Structure formats: C-alpha cells, structure tokens
C-alpha cells in the first residue's frame, strides 16, 4: 500500500518481538475510536454521495432516477470541466511549493529566542485566524486595476497598470498569491513545531567540523524536517485541489471562467444549476485525482523522508 512509509515497527529488535503478538489487537484498539468516528461521519457520507453520482438529482425533487455512468460520460465532454481541472492543477502546482518555501523561510527566521519573538509568531498565526473574507477584500483592493496599491507601486517604477483580477490571463495567479498569503501562517506553525525536534547537538557538531550555516541547514535541518514537509505537501495539496473560498469570495470563477476551479464549478452545478448528480460525479473524479497524487507523494516520500 502506497501509504506505508518507512516503518520503525517493521523491524522490532529481538527483545520486542515477544511483545508483538498482541500488536494487532492493541493497534486496532488504539485506532478504533478515531476510525469509528471518522468511519461514520466521514467515510459513510463519502460512500452515500458516491451513489448520487450515478443518479440524476436536482436536490429539489425526491425522485433520483439512476442514470448509470451518464454523469461521468458527460464530464468528459464538458469543456468547462476540462478547463477547471487545468486551473486547479496550475493552482496546486504553484501554491503548494510556494507556501512551503515561504513558510519554511519564515519559520526559520522565527525560530530563535530574541525579544518579541512571540509577537512575530502570533502574527503568523493571525493569518490563519482572520476570515478569508478580509483577505479577499484586501486583495481586491490591492490589485484593483484602477485604484489598487500594487498598480500605484508599479506606476511609480515606470511599469504600466496591470488588469490583475479582471484579466483572464492574470487572475488565477493573483488567486495563487492571495492563497499563499493566507496559508503562510499554517506552514510556519507546522515548521516551527517541527524545528523544535531538530537536535542542537547535530548543529554544534557540524559547526565544529567547519560546516557553513547554509550547509548545516541543507544537510541537517531540511532532512530532519522531512516528515513535517511530507505532512505539508499532502495536506496543502489536498486543500489546494479543493480550493473554493478564495475564488468564491473574489472572482466567482471569472473573468470568463479563468479562475473556475473544480470545487467552484461543482458548487455552481449543485447549488446554482441544480445538477447535484453531475456535481457528485465531479467530486469523485476529483477524489481519484487527489488519491493518485497523494499516493504518489507518499511513495516518493519513502526515498526522501527521514524519520528518526
């Protein structure tokens, strides 16, 4: 199974082997409260709505006739869905590494005991706590084609005004920037927690051996952060592929569907166009896409992720 990463328990030392007999029962016992709760309120709904994707449903009438794979077949001939997939993938490909890089740099900068450091860390946390509405409004203002501060700055250095969110070619990238901004705090918090696990001794030893700070960062810190990085890659990707709020609150998928991502299109089909069965089919195509990407991430991670 792709999700099995390097596993310390797979090679128990001799003394522990005896204890391994009850391992199955204990493992299940420990996992079961979570598994049951998530099974009922997470997995069961997923399976129930899978059914919907093979039905014609408008959410209004109780009749939901079976249509077989018609919803799925329709998807493959829907140019808007194809565009939505493209936008979603472009967004994810930029957002995930962007957020991780910014998050890592900021976390490293904040991982020191200087005065007011807790104020800085709180600032990072604040980006998660403020509502996406506020972020959306500020970005609408900053990037406004006529009255935005970004264009004023560009004009000041002799660059002409850009249309940003009102341009079909730029809007998606503005959304990427805005979403990175909103998620930086999350990556910072995760990396800050992970940085606490980097043993000081390793750095001290390497410093005595004459390793430069950058070398130490690359050869000690980055590998030791790899479990946190794997977590971030997976979690950010899952969220990026399901982007909705940032689009809903700013461009509403426009202009001319340039920022229509899968979940926005799905919401539009379900709750604006009343095509719930069709929307459910989209959700399961998306599900398969996420599943495959996540599986690949876990598989690749086996080579790079370093567990203690």
């Amino acid at each position: 199974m792709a999700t099995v990463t390097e596993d310390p328990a797979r090679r128990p030392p001799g003394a522990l082997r005896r204890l391994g007999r009850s391992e199955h029962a204990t493992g299940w016992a420990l996992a079961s409260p979570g598994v049951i709760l998530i099974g009922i309120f997470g997995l069961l709904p997923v399976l129930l709505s899978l059914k919907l994707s093979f039905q014609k449903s408008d959410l209004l009438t109780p009749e939901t006739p079976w249509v077989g794979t018609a919803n799925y077949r329709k998807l493959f001939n829907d140019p808007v869905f194809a565009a939505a997939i493209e936008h979603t993938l472009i967004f994810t490909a930029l957002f995930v590494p962007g957020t991780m890089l910014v998050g890592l740099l900021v976390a490293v900068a904040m991982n020191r005991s200087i005065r007011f450091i807790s104020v800085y860390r709180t600032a990072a946390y604040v980006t998660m706590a403020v509502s996406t509405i506020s972020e959306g409004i500020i970005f609408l203002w900053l990037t406004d084609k006529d009255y935005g501060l970004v264009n004023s700055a560009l004009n000041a250095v002799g660059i002409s005004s850009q249309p940003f969110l009102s341009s079909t070619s730029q809007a998606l990238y503005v959304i990427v920037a805005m979403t990175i901004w909103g998620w930086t705090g999350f990556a910072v918090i995760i990396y800050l927690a992970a940085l606490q696990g980097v043993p000081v001794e390793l750095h001290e030893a390497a410093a005595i051996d004459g390793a430069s700070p950058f070398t130490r960062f690359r050869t000690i810190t980055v590998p030791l952060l790899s479990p946190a990085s794997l977590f971030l890659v997976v979690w950010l990707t899952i969220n990026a592929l399901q982007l909705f709020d940032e689009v809903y609150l700013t461009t509403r998928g426009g202009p001319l569907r340039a920022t229509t991502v899968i979940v926005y299109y799905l919401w539009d089909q379900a709750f604006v166009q009343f095509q719930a069965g069709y929307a459910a089919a989209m959700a399961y195509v998306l599900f398969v896409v996420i599943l495959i990407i996540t599986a690949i991430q876990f598989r690749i991670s086996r080579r790079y992720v370093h567990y203690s």
Partner: protein
Amino acid sequence: MMRKMRACGIALGVTTALVLAGCSSSSDSGGESSNGVTKVVVWNGYTDAQAKNFTALMNEYNKANPNVQVSQLVSSSDQVLQKILTAVRGGTPPDVAYMFGSWAPNIAKIPQVVDMTSYVAQPEWNWADFYEGERAAATVKGKVIGVPALVDNLAIVYNKTLFKAAGVAPPTATWTWDDFTAAAKKLTVPAKKQYGWLMPGDGSEDTVWHFDAMLWEAGGDILTPDNTKAAFNSPAGVKALTTLQQMAQDKSVYVDTTNAQGTKLMNSGKLGMMVTGPWDLSSLPDIDYGVQIMPTYNGSSAGHQTISGPDNWVVFNNGSKREKAAVDFVKWLTAAAQVKTTSLASGDLPTRESVGQEQSFVEALNKKLPGSAVFVKNLSNVKKARPPVDQYPAVSEAMGQAIVSVLLGKAEPSAALDNAAKQVDAKLAGN
C-alpha cells in the same frame, strides 16, 4: 474490545437506518406544544432596519394571535439555499422562508413547497393588488409558489455634482441610450480615475439583468414565446450588447469583474452614473445623487422599461395545522397595512400597487430615502419578466459569459450571443 464491537453495531445500525430513512421520510407532526399553540418558524436574511421592522411585526402578530407563536431565524441570505435544500432532505424545513425570486422555477419542484394558488384566489388576499411583475415571478406554470416579499427595479442613479462639473445636463425621463453613452463619455476623467458608468462584469445574474432591461428596450426577448429556444441573439440583442461594447471600448465604463466595488465607488465620487436598485440609495450618504428611469433606444416601440427581481415568502408543508398558521401569517405580513409599515421602516419599495399609488405614502418614503419615488413609479415600467423555466440558471450563465466576453473585448456581440444561444438551445432541449 467491547467498545469496538458496540461501535461496529452502531455503524451498521446507522447504515440500515439511513436506507430506511431514505424510503420513508418521517413527517414531523411536531411544532405544537402541549397548550395548543402552533409554532411557525420563519427563516429570513434580514439585517438592520429590515430586521427590526420584521421583529416588531412578528411580535405584533404574536400578541394578536395567542394560539400561534411565530419565531424567526436570521440566516445569511447568500447561502440560505444550501441550508434549505438540506433541511428539506432531512424532513425539517422551516414553515416560511425568504427566497430569491430567480430560484422560483426550481423551488417550484420541491414537493414540500405549498401551492398557494387556491389561497391567494381568496378575495381577502387581494392578489391582483401585487404588481404584475411580482405575480409573474411568483407563478410557475400556473402555480403560485410564493408571496411577494420584496420588489425592486433598475434605474439610473447619478452623481449631480459630477454632472455639473462635466457640464452635462442631468438624465431626463426621455433619455435614449445615445444620450446615456454620450454623457458617460463626458463624465469620464482618466486623470481622476473617474468613470461615466459601472457595469457588473462577473457574468452572474447581476450582469445579466442589467442587459435584460436593455434587450427588452431594444425590442428583444430572452427566449421565444414558447420558452423553447433562445431569442436574445436577435438584432435587438446585438444592438443592446453593441451599446455595452462601445462603452467598454471608449473606456467610459468601469467593468467590475469581481462585482464588489460598485456602490463604494459611487459613494466615493468616482462614478458619474450607476444602473442599480433602491437598496443602494442608503449606502450613498456622501454624494448628492439623483434618480432617473432607464433610457431607451431611439425610435424603439418598446419604450422605457426596467427589470424587477421580486423575492418571495415561500411556505413549506409541515403538517396542515402549521401550514394553515404559516399561510395566515404570510397573508397578514403582506397585507397593505404591513406593506406600508415595512416600506417606510426599511426603505424597500411597496410590494402592493394600492400602496404605491398613495401619494402621501410615496412622499413620505421619498423623504426618508430620496429618490425612492422614482423607483416606485418605475415599477410600472416593469413590462416583462425572466422566463419561468427551470433551466433559467443555465440561460443566465450562458448570457453572462457572452456579455462579459464582449465587455472584456474577447468577442464580438453577434458571435458571442450566437454562441450562447447555441448552449441555451441545447439546455432547453434537455441536454
């Protein structure tokens, strides 16, 4: 391991129960407390003055009807549809909900929605007193599915100061679109980042209904009379969209692709004109504004028109006793006296013609919110309504994309409308 076993049992039970629940939706006979008081739950999206007014009316009704207890739930109107659809699925809809008029054809399909046709036929409802456009929007295939809760329409709201500064005469009731575009051009001052007009350019229904009014004034229609094919790609449609194209090309219109800034830009003195509804008037405290009906096309027999987006009170069936109580409350709430109170308290237009024709009332309303009188009078310019087909959301979406593509200079009017018409025809044919 006991816990595990028990939990597995629960999981199994849930699955079975869901299958069963799917077959027999439990009809809730509740809502009646032991002392015989019938409870009526109303979901609305009212805030501020509207909320205060509704609460006062509700309390008044409760006092006068001790055997009925009306209560309300304030719910973000933006996403209330998701809440209602889920509640209907779970068998727990409210008794009355405030719903946007554009949802009407779809709402009509919900079996729990009460058919009001026979109720409103009773003389004490005085149904014909509601404006024609409202009644049309509440009627789907001959079935009345709601009672008008709010009515509005589009008119020109203009900044008197900017008009004076540009040396342009204010809009008149006989303006043509040529007058409008010429004025917008003169009102545009690039150095001040000042525009003659603003057009919502997000491609939503907000974009579309601005165009609808122009389309009708040019003599066109959205769909063919039998609602089976697109009709907006007629010469009239091209004419209307060409007007928008010209304004976009000479940059006298701010195309608001995120549809967020309109009122604020107007209030900041950055716009000469807006085409908007009465709800915006209270958000323009910083400018000296005037209101005028929409211009029409030179020589058009269709004259000056506008579009109205009436919202409705929709009643859900939660057992006959609650239904009866809910209908009675809605009847009282939308009677002329309460319409007048609501209108004066909130600044909303009166939903009943008899109220709108009362001179002293219109004066009082206009005093409270200057410009309202024009909007009240403009209700008689509502001559057409959106086609009541349940594919309307798809019609609106196709038209919205066509309009925005022209506004952004990505397509020519006739090609864009033809392309949209093709999509609409396919949807109406059932694909």
